[in-house]
């Protein structure tokens, strides 16, 4: 029965096919692990009503109060890993961005408030584990937002390597709102512009003058002098309390070059919503600084502009000549050429360049005149009022 189902192949062919099939089956489960990956984490108990809590911890805690939660640590690799988990204060990175202090730094704020139940854990390949922690705010916790981090980092032995040795870690922001007198306010701080070969880098900066962070919608715009929008970009970034934040918006350079106005504006929710909340949103828009800049055209645009300019100049020249010719035709009078006349002698008498005289009468080289020939010349009255032409 089995033999009738199979094609009539040699023994070697059957054996090879069987081995290939077995190898394929055995390799299948292992190929899933042949991927890159790292160690990461996320909040273990996100609030379903606030999607932001899927990626960061958002807590409102009274002074001298404790809350409990957990961080889920994920081993994305195919190997068992030993992982460090620890809390740090937040720091401000260059450009006002959110960053986390190092484990070696002394933790003075939120990094000290967070107590994790474990500091190192072993996680199986592609496994996850939850590490509970508590946050206890001090009695004198200042109203407003306080930030810290929960860090997840693979434990590794370090060895001496000349140059820069890099380590990696994933941090989860812990944003804590201490209720009280909350001030939510940001103001435009500055605008700088850096022209690159193909891009214009627009760098708006914004200052947070309140005591909570603000998610600001920053819109940068490049307009022509006729107020038509050439390029615009909008992005939402957090502006941390008390800090100045700036961002590099790489915008397309206007193809034709010329004068342009670069500006930005800020939009943010002034309601009492804390991070990720969306109740009774009230957006306030503030105009930021603007600058008039000269943009160099692209190489292609430059040559096109050069050709157009040359065409315009040429056109203007011919238009001028046409107008002069029309005027001459109206005011010039007929003159009958005498035997001794040359074009130069007539031109001298009429106080005009012989070249103009030749051109207006369409006399070509060698500019010979025949007796009795009728040509147009300026009137005697006109000639008297003009200086003698250069030869």
């Amino acid at each position, binding site marked *: 029965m089995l033999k009738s189902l199979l094609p009539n192949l040699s023994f070697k062919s059957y054996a090879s096919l*069987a081995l290939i099939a*077995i190898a394929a089956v055995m390799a299948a489960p292992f190929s899933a692990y042949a991927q890159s990956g*790292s160690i990461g984490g996320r909040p273990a108990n996100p609030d379903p009503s606030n999607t932001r809590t899927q990626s960061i911890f958002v807590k409102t805690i009274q002074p001298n109060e404790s809350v409990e939660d957990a961080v889920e640590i994920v081993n994305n690799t195919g190997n068992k890993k030993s992982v460090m988990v620890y809390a740090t204060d937040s720091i401000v990175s260059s450009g006002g961005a959110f960053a*986390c202090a190092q484990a070696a*730094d002394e933790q003075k704020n939120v990094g000290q408030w967070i107590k994790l139940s474990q500091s190192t854990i072993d996680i199986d390949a592609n496994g996850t584990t939850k590490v509970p922690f508590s946050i206890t705010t001090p009695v004198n916790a200042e109203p407003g937002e306080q930030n810290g981090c929960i860090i997840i980092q693979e434990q590794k032995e370090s060895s001496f390597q000349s140059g*820069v040795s890099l380590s*990696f870690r994933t941090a989860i922001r812990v944003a804590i709102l201490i209720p009280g007198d909350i001030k939510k306010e940001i103001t435009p701080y500055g605008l700088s512009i850096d022209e690159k070969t193909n891009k214009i880098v627009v760098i708006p900066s914004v200052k947070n003058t309140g005591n909570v962070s603000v998610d600001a919608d920053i819109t940068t715009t490049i307009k022509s002098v006729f107020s038509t929008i050439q390029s615009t970009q909008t992005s939402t970034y957090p502006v941390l309390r008390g800090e100045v934040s700036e961002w590099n918006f790489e915008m397309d350079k206007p193809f034709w070059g010329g004068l342009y106005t670069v500006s930005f504006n800020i939009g943010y929710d002034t309601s009492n919503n804390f991070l990720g909340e969306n109740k009774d949103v009230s957006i306030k828009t503030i105009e930021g600084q603007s600058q008039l800049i000269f943009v160099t055209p692209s190489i292609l645009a430059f040559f096109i502009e050069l050709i157009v300019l040359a065409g315009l100049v040429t056109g203007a020249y011919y238009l001028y000549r046409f107008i002069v010719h029309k005027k001459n035709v109206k005011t010039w009078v007929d003159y009958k050429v005498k035997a001794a006349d040359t074009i130069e002698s007539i031109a001298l008498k009429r106080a005009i360049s012989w070249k103009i005289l030749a051109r207006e009468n369409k006399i070509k080289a060698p500019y010979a005149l025949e007796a009795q020939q009728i040509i147009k010349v300026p009137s005697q009255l006109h000639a008297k009022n003009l200086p003698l032409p250069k030869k």
Partner: protein
Amino acid sequence: MNKFIKVAASSLLVLGIALCITTVSYAANNANVTQTINSGTLVTDIRDASRVTVASPSFAMAGTTFSFNCQTTTGVIGSDSQRLYVDNPGAANAGYTLTLAATGGATSTWNNAGTTQSFDYNDPTTAGCTDGADADAKGGQLTVNPTAGTLTADCSSCTLTGITKGASTAYSQAVTDSVTLLTAAAGSDDIGRWYLTGIGLSQTIPGEQPNDSYTINLTATVTAS
């Protein structure tokens, strides 16, 4: 005997095919097949061109010769074989930042193998050429220039929209302890994979620094906003 082996081989072939089939899920007429794909986690690491993680990445600075005067050496973080990756597999839905700071904190230094010789990475005095007002007694300053680098989106659905590279910045103790490499806005792709190459490094080395091999440990941190 030969017939027996043929039948055995055929049986193995059929068994192999059957096993292959069992590893693939087929929707049956009378069963609902459901599958949930959970969001992953935000991670950063160094990978090669085949996206395999590099276990101990390091980036050499250009070699210099002993000098009685202050000098500058340069280097680059990120090459085609050592790409600085950020994966956001639906983990950060309001953006993220990628920052770079000294692992040992603001009092870190470049050290030789025996830590008998060192120089600073965050002393702004005369652009790092002399020791200044910071806590240690070493000169030297490291500048990181992410704008010199190239950011590449490495998946079919992700773009560079809303992701900005940080400005060129020098470390300065207690003023700039961390340099921003990338800032992803809330509107950037929630699912994406990107890598940076060619991040510029420039280190001023104080005059009369003894010749030796030096290292500094830096940590790249990716944080959901």
